[in-house]
Structure formats: structure tokens, C-alpha cells
């Protein structure tokens, strides 16, 4: 059994790849072990050498040479093309199948659909027009009522002045609180009775 640090851990420590716990443990051991300190120092110099190897000098014009040799680009197909083709094929198969089973052609289907939609439009359209008219009248009435209410409020505050308005608001608040109190009391009494 050896008490010394494993060389792989020394390399990982130098690379900063050792976890905080293991690194702390390793540093603690290094303080008391000159052999491991020496082993770490040896590998530190090697590590510096490993990590500072000179890069390859690429000749100027390399990228241009690559581009010259590139084949014609393979363009990516539109992502919606395949689903569209599949949908069209399914529809065509369905129509042929429908014709074979029922004897009804696509043209017959179209004529039938046209009649149905015309009948539906004949019933739905007048109803929609009436609903729209009614909606317009209701909007106008609500608008008039709102503007009348606002005018009344403005006149009321003008007559009362700022102090009077505050007193009126306070009284209204009191009245609302009183009503809430009464309502709560009643519901509590109901609960007791039940």
C-alpha cells in the first residue's frame, strides 16, 4: 500500500480538473510529503510543455484553396415540402377511395358542398346582420347613459364644492360599510340558525 498521490491525480490537479474536495485533500498531503511535491513539480513543467506546443502555421490562401475545391452546394429542402406532398397524396388517395366505394366523383362532392354552403349562408347571414344591428343600438344606449352619468356627477361636484364632495364621499363610504356589516351579520345569523 502506498501513501503517495496517484500521478493521474497530479495531472488532473494541474489541469484544474480535480474537484474542490479532492484538490484540498491533495494540497494537504503535499504539505507533508516532499516526494509528492517533487513529483508534482516534475509534472508541472511537463504540463506547461504540453499546453504550450506551437500551433501549425497554415499557409496563406489555404481557405481559398478549400473553397475552390468545394462542390456545388447541396441546398436544404424546404421543411414544409414533404408534409405538403404527403397531405396532397393522402387527399388524392382518399378521393379515389371515396369514389370507388360510393361511386361519387370529386365534382359531385364539390357541387354538393356548394349547395350546402349556399343554404347555410342564406340562413345565417340575415341573422348575423340583425345581431350586428342590435349590438349597435345597445352600444349607443350604453354610451348615452354613461355620458349622462358623467355629466350628472360633474354638476353634482361643482355644486357641492371640494369640501362637500369629500363629505359626500365619506357618507357614501359609511353607507357601504354599514350595508356590508348588515349583510355579514345576517349571513352569520343564518349560519347559527342552521
Amino acid at each position, binding site marked *: 500500500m502506498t501513501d503517495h498521490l496517484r500521478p493521474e491525480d497530479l495531472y488532473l490537479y494541474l489541469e484544474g*480538473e480535480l474537484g474542490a474536495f479532492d484538490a484540498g485533500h491533495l494540497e494537504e498531503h503535499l504539505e507533508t510529503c516532499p516526494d509528492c511535491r*517533487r513529483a508534482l513539480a516534475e509534472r508541472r513543467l*511537463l504540463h506547461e510543455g*504540453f499546453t504550450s506546443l506551437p500551433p*501549425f502555421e497554415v499557409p496563406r490562401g489555404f481557405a481559398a484553396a*478549400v473553397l475552390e475545391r468545394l462542390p456545388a452546394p447541396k*441546398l436544404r429542402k424546404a421543411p414544409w415540402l414533404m408534409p405538403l406532398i404527403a397531405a396532397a397524396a393522402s387527399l388524392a388517395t382518399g378521393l379515389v377511395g371515396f369514389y370507388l366505394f360510393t361511386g361519387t366523383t370529386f365534382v359531385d362532392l364539390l357541387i354538393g358542398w356548394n349547395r350546402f354552403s349556399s343554404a347555410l349562408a342564406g340562413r345565417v347571414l340575415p341573422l348575423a346582420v340583425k345581431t350586428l344591428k342590435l349590438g349597435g343600438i345597445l352600444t349607443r344606449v350604453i354610451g348615452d347613459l354613461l355620458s349622462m352619468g358623467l355629466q350628472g356627477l360633474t354638476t353634482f361636484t361643482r355644486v357641492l364644492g371640494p369640501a362637500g364632495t369629500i363629505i359626500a364621499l365619506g357618507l357614501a363610504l359609511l353607507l357601504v360599510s354599514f350595508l356590508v356589516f348588515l349583510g355579514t351579520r345576517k349571513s352569520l345569523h343564518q349560519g347559527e340558525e342552521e
Partner: protein
Amino acid sequence: MTEDRLLVSRALKGDRKAYEMIVRKYEQPLTSYLHRMTGEREAALDFAQEVFIKAYCSLASYRPAFKFSTWLFKIASNHLIDHWRKKKLPTVSIDQPVDEGDDSLTPQIPDPGPSTARRFELAEIREKIERALETVPEALRELFVLRHVSEFSYEEIADIKGLPVGTVKNRVFQAKEMLRKRMEAS
């Protein structure tokens, strides 16, 4: 969208300028890797061209969920494997244990000394590493180069090579110890 993904997307639409930018960005790390793997300057440049062309032809299969660099190096790594397979180069088993002889290394390191001396020492070490690297089996050398020359993380290398991270760490360690022993012997 990252810069690479944006460039790939533009290249896929036929924008050659975008692909040129990709080539310029990766020409140096890729050739550095290939040079260390082939040991020949011209071969490295030829291989790099072929890898860039291969990547361009299969650009539509690139999935943006992955890093472009790892995808490109995966192509390069497979290209090298094909090359070695064709040439039938002798390979050394990477399961062979690293020669565990004398465990001491010659360089006297602890004293940092003056910076110029340190620079010379480092330059000498680098030269020794380059020479020793040529004798390390390809499978170990490749992982070492990916880690220390191309500066990929262990996780990225695992992704490129389709190996577990633990195996990658262990093999990079084996490569380093092998280098250490060979440098010591030289």
C-alpha cells in the same frame, strides 16, 4: 444562435462566404491536430482540405444541438482512421501498460530560475515532447492532441471519439506518462 450555427445556416443556404469564415476559424486547430497525427506538413494540409470538403458536403446532417467544433473533429478523426485502415499502419495496443521503470524524471524543476533560462528549458521540453509524441501509438496520441493541442474538454473528446469520459481521462494520462518515460529515455 451561436456564431457557428449562424454561419452553418448561411452556408446551407448557399452562402460560400459563410463557409469560408468557418474554414478560416478552424483551419489552424484542425491542421495542428492533423499535423501531430500524420507527422507530415503536406499530408496535414491535404487532410485538412479533405475534411473541410467532407464537412461541407454533409453540412445538412449537422445538428445544431451539438458544438460545430466537435462535429468537425469527429469527421477529421474518422478520416484519419480510414486513412490508417487503408495504409494498414502497424498499431500498438493501448491496453499495454505504460512502462513503469524508474519513476524519476531528469529535468530539475523546482528552482524556477531566471525567466530566460525558464524559456529555454520550456522550449527544450517542447521539442522533446514533439519528438516523443511521434512514437506514441495513434490512439493515445490522438486523445492527447485533442486535449492539449486542440484544447477540447474531456467531455468533448468523449463526444468526438464516442468513448466514456473516464476512458478518455485514463488514456490521456497513459499518453502523458508514456511521453514522460520516452523523454526520460532520450
